C-alpha cells in the first residue's frame, strides 16, 4: 500500500472522529455524524482504505482519544453495551466499499451499498446490546434497532450523494485512482 493511502486513511479516521461529534438538527430524528461519516468514508475511499480508516478510528478510541460519539473513549465503550455498533462499523465500511467496487461508483449503486451497509452496525449493535445489557429481544430491538432505521436511511442517502460527488472530484484531481484506490 502506498504512503498516500496510509495518510488518506489517517485523515479519514480523524474526520470520522470530528464528524461523530456533529449533529444536524432535524425534527424528531436528529442526524448524528458518526454513521454518516462511516458511509461517506466507504463511498469515497472504497473497501480497503475505508476499512483501514475505521480500524484506525477504533484504535484511537480504544486508546482513550475522545473520538466516539459524545466524546466517549476507551475500552469501556468498545466492550460496553454499545460496543457492537462500533465493531459493526468495520464490516460496514468493507461491505459498502466492496459493493461499489463490484458494481460502479454511481449514485444508484451508492444508495444501495450505503443502505445495505447501514443495517450491519444495527444488527451487530442490537445483538451485542441484548447480551451485554442482559435485555430481552423486544427491549433490545426497541431501544437499539428501531429508532435508528429512519435516520440510518436518511444518512445512507446523504453519504451516497455526497460521497459520489466528492469522489468524482478527487479522481479528477488525481488524489484517488479510478479503480477504487488499489494499493
Amino acid at each position: 500500500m502506498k504512503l498516500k493511502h496510509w495518510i488518506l486513511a489517517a485523515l479519514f479516521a480523524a474526520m470520522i472522529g470530528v464528524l461523530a461529534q456533529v449533529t444536524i438538527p432535524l425534527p424528531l430524528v436528529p442526524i448524528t455524524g458518526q454513521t454518516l461519516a462511516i458511509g461517506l468514508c466507504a463511498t469515497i475511499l472504497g473497501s480497503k482504505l475505508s476499512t483501514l480508516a475505521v480500524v484506525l478510528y477504533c484504535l484511537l478510541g480504544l486508546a482513550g482519544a475522545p473520538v466516539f460519539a459524545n466524546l466517549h473513549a476507551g475500552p469501556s465503550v468498545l466492550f460496553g453495551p454499545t460496543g457492537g455498533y462500533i465493531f459493526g462499523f468495520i464490516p460496514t465500511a468493507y461491505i459498502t466499499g466492496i459493493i461499489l467496487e463490484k458494481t460502479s461508483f454511481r449514485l444508484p449503486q451508492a444508495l444501495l451499498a450505503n443502505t445495505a451497509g447501514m443495517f450491519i452496525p444495527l444488527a451487530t449493535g442490537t445483538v451485542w446490546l441484548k447480551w451485554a445489557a442482559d435485555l430481552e429481544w423486544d427491549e433490545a430491538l426497541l431501544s437499539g434497532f428501531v429508532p435508528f432505521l429512519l435516520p440510518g436511511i436518511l444518512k445512507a442517502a446523504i453519504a451516497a450523494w455526497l460521497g459520489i460527488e466528492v469522489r468524482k472530484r478527487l479522481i479528477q484531481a488525481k488524489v484517488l485512482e479510478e479503480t477504487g484506490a488499489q494499493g
Partner: protein
Amino acid sequence: MASEMLSYIDRPSPVHRLTGAAKLLCFLLWSSAAMLTYDTRVLLFLFAMAIVIFRISRIKWKEVSFVLIFILVFLLINNIAIYLFSPQEGVKIYGTRHVLLELGGRYDVTAEQLFYQFNITLKYFTVIPAALLFMVTTHPSEFAASLNRIGVSYRIAYAVSLALRYIPDIQREFRNISRAQQARGLDMSKKEKLHRRLKNAFSILAPLVLSSIDRIETITNAMELRGFGKKKRRTWYSARPFHKRDFLAVFLFALIFLASVLITFHDGRRFYNPFLP
C-alpha cells in the same frame, strides 16, 4: 464545538514522566477493571483513586472542563434512556423490589433501579478522568512510539499518530467553513425548512472533505522525500526507555485489576447486592 478537543498539556508531574507505553497499559488495565465490575465497593475505590491520580498529574479541572461537561450531559441522557427502555433492570438483577415512587406498571421507581444506575454512573466517573488524563499527559509523537513498542507495526502506529494530529485541524476547518457559509446566509438552525437544512449540510461537508484532502499530496511527498517507509523498522525521536517507575506503575495497575476481578467474582456474580438480607 466551541473549544478544541483534548490536546497535550505539559507539566512537570510524575504522570507525565511515565512512558506513553506504560500509561497505555495502565489505562487499558484500569478501563478493563471498571468495565468488568459492577461491585459498588470496587467502583468507589477506583473513583477515589482516579481523583488522587488526577491531583498528582497537576492538570487542573478547568483545563478539561469543556469535555468533562459535555460528557456529563450525555451521561445524564444515557441514564434517562436506561430508565425509559429498561426501568426494571435493577429489579431483575438484584432480585428484590422496593418501590420508592409509584408511576404505574413498569415505570415504578425502585431502589434497585436507582442503585443499578448509580453503578453505571460510577463506571463513567471512573473511566472518564483516566481517559482525559492519558490524552493530556501523553504527547502524540510519543504515543506512536508507544504503540510501536507494544507490537503494532510502525506504519499503523504512525497512522494513528497522524490521525490524532489531524483532529484539531479538521475541527478548525469545520468551524471556518461553517462560519464562512453562515456569513453567506446559510442557516442550520431550526428556523429553516427540512430540505434546505439538508442542502446546507452538504454545503459544509463537501468543502470540509475536499479541503482536508487537499493536503494529502503535500504530506505524502514531504514524508517520502524524508525516507519514510523504506525500512522494516525505525527508531523514534520521542521514545523513552522504561524505568523502574514504569514497571512499578504497570505492576500496581495489574494488581488493581486482579483484585477487582477477584472481589467482584468471588461469589460468582458481577453485582454487589446490598438488598439481600
